Every structure is written in C-alpha cells, then in structure tokens.
C-alpha cells in the first residue's frame, strides 16, 4: 500500500522525496530516474566543473556519464541515506577515471565565447557587486587554484553547499573542508589583490 501511495505521489504529482524517486528507479522506473536527473544535473555538473578542466563540453559529457553509471549502480544506493552524497561520490569517481585516462585537457585560461554565452547563474550587471572585468579576473584565479582548493571553494561559494554537505560529498573530514576553503580563499586574495589594484588605478 505504501509503495502504491509513493508511486502516485511521484508520478501524479511529480513530487516525492529524492529517496522515494531513487527507490522507484531501483525497481527500473525510468521516468522516476529522469526526475532525479533533473533535480541533480546542476549539482553534478558543478561538482565535475570544479574538479576537471572547465571545458563546458567535457563537463557536460562527464555529467551524462555520471548519471548513466549511477543508473547501473543503483542497487548499491541505500535509500535511507541522502541521494546527493551518493551521486556526488559517483561524480567524483567519474572525474578520477577521467583524470587517469589522461584525457584531461589543460585548464583553459581564457574565458571562451561559449562560456560567456551559455546559461549561467550570474546576476545581471546592474545588481553585481564587482565589475565584469573584476569578475572575469576572479574566475581566472579560481580556475588556476590547485584542484583540492578549487573544488571546495566552488562547491561552497558557487554551488552554495554547506560544509557538512561538502564533507560528505567529497568524503573528507569536516575540519579539512574548513581548512581547504580558508586556504583556497587566502590564495585567491593574494592573487587577486594586485589585479584589483591594477583595475582600480
């Protein structure tokens, strides 16, 4: 009976928790899985974006790989645990495999046309705190951060994840997450100060 109610909740109302959807998907329900992909595509995309070479096409492919791989391994998911942490671990493994397979391209240090025109969560220029030029510089600095600082900084400030969520997703102790975020920001500040001064003069 409970299962039938869950089914109705998910399919008729397009509601239901992530864990409900995942439990249905485990039984082979593709539409339920499609809803889950819709909910988590942005998160997975950002996790991969923060860990790999920032090329939009690559990250898009890796995001797709992550969800296909997750589907094949759904039987390893425990529906009493948060789906987000589980999918983040799969994304992390996809990123590692990609790294191993040596397909990783060097970081793009220029912001390409494509990146400027793709949908993003950037605010409109009128309400922004810093100028477009400063933002461009800051993004470059973030891209050049060492991997282990960049991924936590992106997840914390761009993806706005909590410290606990980041720790769980990256399988790191909470203390390491705090330290890495702090050190990453210090690096950003050091590298940003001359640039900002330059921009102001």
């Amino acid at each position, binding site marked *: 009976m409970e299962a039938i109610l869950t089914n109705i909740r998910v399919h008729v109302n397009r509601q239901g928790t992530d864990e409900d959807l995942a439990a249905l998907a485990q039984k082979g329900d593709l539409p339920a899985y499609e809803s889950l992909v819709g909910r988590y595509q942005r998160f997975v995309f950002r996790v991969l*974006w923060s860990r790999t070479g920032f090329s939009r096409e690559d990250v898009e492919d890796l995001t797709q790989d992550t*969800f296909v791989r997750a589907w094949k391994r759904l039987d390893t998911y425990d529906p009493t645990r948060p789906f987000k942490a589980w999918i983040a671990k799969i994304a992390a493994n996809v990123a590692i495999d990609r790294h191993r397979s040596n397909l990783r391209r060097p970081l793009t240090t220029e912001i390409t046309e494509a990146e400027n025109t793709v949908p993003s969560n950037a605010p409109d220029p009128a309400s922004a705190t810093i100028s477009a030029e400063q933002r461009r510089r800051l*993004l470059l600095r973030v891209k050049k951060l060492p991997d282990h600082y960049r991924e936590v900084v992106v997840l914390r*400030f761009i993806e706005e994840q909590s410290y606990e969520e980041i720790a769980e997703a990256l399988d790191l102790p909470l203390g390491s997450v705090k330290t890495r975020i702090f050190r990453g920001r210090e690096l950003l500040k050091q590298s940003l100060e001359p640039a900002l001064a330059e921009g102001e003069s």
Partner: protein
Amino acid sequence: MDCLSNEQLFFYSEGLLEADETRRIAAHLQSCESCAARYLEEIELTVALRELPAPLPSAAMPGRVISQIRAARARTFSLWWWAVAFGLLVASGLRWFPAGDLSPEKAALSLTEFLSDGAIAVVQLVARLSDLNTWSHLGRAMLTLAEMAAQSPLWLASSVTAVFMVAVAANVLLWSLTRHALVHR
C-alpha cells in the same frame, strides 16, 4: 584584545565559531576599524565568488541520459536472447550426444536444482531484465539445464525445455507490457 587573524575573520563570516568566540569577535569589530575593514573584504570576496558566471548544464541533459540508458538496455536485451538461444542449443546438443553414465538419483537432484535456479532466474528476469546481474543467474540456470538434459530421459528434457521456453516467453511479454506502461504513462 589583539587584532583578529584572517582565519578568525573568515570563520566568523561563515558562522563557524563557538558562541563565546563569536561574541568576542563581534565586540572587537565594533571597536577596531582596521579589523572591520578586513572583515568587509572577506564579505566582499564571498559575494564576488557567489556572483561568478558558472555555467549550467543544458536543459536536454535528463533526456539524453534516459536515451543512453534505453540504448544500453536494448543492447543487453538482444545479447540476452542470443544467450538463451545458445543455451538451448548446447542443452539439446548434450541431450543427443550424452556423455558419461547417469543415475536416476543424480538426474532427480539436477532437476530439483534446475527448477529452483530456473525460478530464481525467472524472478530476476521480471525484476531486472536489463541488468547485467541477470547473467550470473542465467548462466547457472543454463549450466544446470545442460547437465540435466544430458542425464535425463528424452521426454523429460523436452518437456522441461518447453516449460522453460514458455516461462521465458510469458515473462518477456509481461516485462514489455509493464515497461510500456511505465515509460509511456
């Protein structure tokens, strides 16, 4: 109180400190202009990072994932049929060219084993036809079928094979009906 470290300022701005330390830092920021200015810089950096133009995945992503899964599933499904055909071929081959001697007890044992394995395989088929885990059960069922066929009288082997094929056909039909209902709701 001494001026605040960068670490204190940042963790304070993120609300990560204990109540006591939070109160002390708040009091210090009231009275120290240079720390207050550095605190403002921390906040500004956080806001600037939040406003970075990070890309988003394209809206077609869920659809693409689902088509890739469907394609993989279709491939597995056709592979599966090849396995069934091959298994039956091997089974009938072994029946017509029996090897080694056989005893009625061994045949009965194999038959029981086959039936229970077959039941497991059928249940698995209904539940997860597209999943590769099916292979292990299928493989076991096929092996037992082959052993049994080699050791049993012709009428038994033929009828069991027929029952097996009917069961497979019925489950495939059931599977495609339920999948159709799920996918095209």
